[in-house]
């Protein structure tokens, strides 16, 4: 009989567990939920941690699922089962706004929380260098213009592209297609640096511009930016690209290349004079403002100079503050919970 008794016990526990979980479903939520981009994650988590430490509200849960995945969850509906905020390394797309509206998420607050710069970097033992977007496109693209025709990328060395560039083999570590960093790089470098004639011959379509070469000069290094930093440290002629915060954290190992003659600096990224800078966003659901405790306060954190300003703690982890005008706009939006117009 021992076996049967044991079995009964287990079934009882099981039933208790199910009952327990059913009870909790009906409960309201008192903890904020943030989802979205892995680029915004390092910043929203720092804010969440400080927010929780103050003791008035629970520490928000911050997920890292990527910009697209974040919008999918964010736009799934209104109510305690759905996240309150989502981080994004690009502005919300039209289709995503439509998805939101279809599911009843009509009032969205858009907050520019700061800027991120993409850094094209090499080990400190490597050569100082300066690239234009066109040169970078020529180094990475699968097909390029060569002698007036579209051909498979023939460039083996940087000096093949331009005499002024170093006489070493092209070797670049890139992020995989699922990464937001890759999206940003494709938009800022591959599409912008794409040959005009090349686009013309492709019927005005820029899709071919963002196809990466597959002959070993460009290596997909995985989602992990820390790993890319480690790899370029160990071989002095290998380049890689990642967010500005990785440069800040690894200054002893890597140095940035200039883009169009400009070194990535805080000021350059802030004013967008450094060509590879992009704004980062936090999107919020206004419908949750009075429902989930701490909503307004958490949003407010992103407008404080002590958080996002030049003296703020997010600056220390690599978030480049907004320019003055945007800063004021953000403060306005937070104060009035202004929804975005579309």
């Amino acid at each position, binding site marked *: 009989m021992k076996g049967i008794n044991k079995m009964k016990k*287990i079934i009882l526990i099981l039933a208790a567990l199910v009952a327990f*979980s059913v009870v909790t479903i009906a409960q309201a939520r008192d903890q904020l939920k943030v989802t979205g981009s892995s680029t915004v*994650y390092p910043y929203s988590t720092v804010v969440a*941690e400080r927010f929780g430490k103050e003791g008035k509200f629970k520490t928000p849960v911050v997920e890292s*699922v990527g910009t697209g995945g974040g919008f999918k*969850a964010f736009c799934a509906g209104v109510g305690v*089962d759905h996240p309150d905020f989502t981080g994004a390394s690009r502005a919300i797309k039209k289709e995503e706004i439509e998805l939101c509206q279809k599911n009843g998420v009509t009032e969205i607050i858009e907050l520019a929380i700061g800027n991120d710069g993409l850094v094209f970097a090499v080990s400190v033992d490597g050569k100082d260098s300066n690239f234009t977007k066109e040169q970078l496109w020529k180094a990475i693209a699968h097909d390029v213009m060569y002698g007036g025709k579209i051909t498979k990328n023939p460039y083996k060395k940087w000096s093949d592209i331009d005499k002024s560039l170093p006489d070493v083999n092209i070797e670049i570590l890139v992020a995989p297609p699922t990464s937001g960093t890759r999206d940003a790089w494709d938009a800022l470098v591959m599409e912008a640096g794409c040959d005009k004639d090349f686009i013309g011959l492709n019927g005005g379509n820029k899709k071919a511009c963002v196809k990466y070469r597959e002959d070993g000069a460009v290596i997909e290094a995985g989602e992990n930016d820390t790993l890319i930093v480690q790899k370029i440290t160990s071989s002095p002629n290998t380049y890689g690209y990642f967010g500005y915060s*990785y440069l800040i*954290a690894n200054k002893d190992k890597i140095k940035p290349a200039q883009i169009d003659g400009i070194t990535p600096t805080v000021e350059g990224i802030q004013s967008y004079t450094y060509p590879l800078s992009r704004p980062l966003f936090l999107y919020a659901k206004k419908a949750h403002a009075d429902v989930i405790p701490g909503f307004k306060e958490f949003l407010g954190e992103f407008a404080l100079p002590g958080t996002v300003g030049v003296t703020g703690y997010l600056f220390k982890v*690599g978030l480049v503050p907004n320019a003055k005008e945007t800063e004021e706009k953000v403060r306005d939006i937070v104060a009035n919970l202004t929804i975005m117009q579309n």
Partner: protein
Amino acid sequence: MTSKQKEIFLKKRYRAENRFKFFGIFSITLAVSFLGILLFNIFSSGLSAFFKTKILLKINFDEKKLGININTSEKEIKASNFNEILQEALLNLDLLTPELKKIELIDIVSVDATYELKRFYLKHKDQLNKMIEVSLTLSDDLDQLHKGNFPRDIPEDRRRFSDFQLKVFDEQNAQNKIITEFNFSFFTNADSRDPELAGIGSSLMGSLLTLLVCLILSFPIGILAAIYLEEFAPKNKITEIIEINVNNLAAVPSIVFGLLGLGIFLNYFYLPRSTPLVGGLVLALMTLPRIIIPCRAALKAVPPSIREGALALGASKVQTVMHNVVPLAMPGTLSGTIIGLSQALGETAPLILIGMVAFINVVPFYPIDPSAVLPVQVYLWSESAERGFVEKTSATIIILIFFLAFMNSFAIYLRNKFERKWS
């Protein structure tokens, strides 16, 4: 065949045998050396995370500056600010600090230092108005410097700490005020964005709770399914289809179960996101076939003479199975379950979709508290830019490996101890 031909043939056979042995030894050596390299890599970069660097600082618990007295209640102490006495003590380290460098001096300790002081005072209330040495956690950059993970002889602008901070650090080190102690907080703290504070407490608890939910669900269901299929079910088309499907399910990529969990548990049943309850449910789905298959194998291995003997003595079918067959099949079943669970322990893919790849700052206690699990923690930290997380990542892998090794050796122990050999 002449004797010479025979000899040549024999030599050929010996050569073939030697070749085969060589290939075998070669592949084992290769596999072991890969494992060795992996373990060496992880241990050499991860062991330092089990220690942390602290500074001994003379603190004056001045009641005026704290705004408290000996009768102040615990609640009020918790609400009071210990920052002022901390900053005062830090600035005393170098009385000639220029105004602009003061912030650098204050930055040498962790942001948690004022809370550390508060916790210290709550335990030592008799220290009010006294000067006493308290050990406080250093900032992660200096911690990494002390552990030798940051170079010091490079230009200031490429370092994470200034010349001035380095000078103060060296002075204190020369006076033996910099100490290294075992990093208990690594096991008790939740995740944090400050590497010196980050711990695996939340993900360890999350893993335990998730496994518990997974075990409670998959073990009884798996065993009952296996017993029914093996002992009671009629052999026909339907049971055959079920059998094929069970075997198929065991090979389905785990992310598919994550999608299923998202679709059913979150979107249909509205169970809370990011919780061990949902994580356990999803992993239970994944583990079920991995329990059913070894359990059926164990039941099959019980010789028919046991069943026949019981039936001959007048036991019913249920009695035979429950009293005689199942107890004998238990060792195999249990070790199968443990191995299934240890696979579940290492999963991250299905958990992304149900929101467990998340920053959790509080240690969870119930299956409905948001939490992460150990492999997720490894993933999240390996993505972080700060240098301090490199050692934490490896240290978490070490803990995970120990966890797995313990579970697997427990499975082997169970099998060796209770398994019966039928001869």
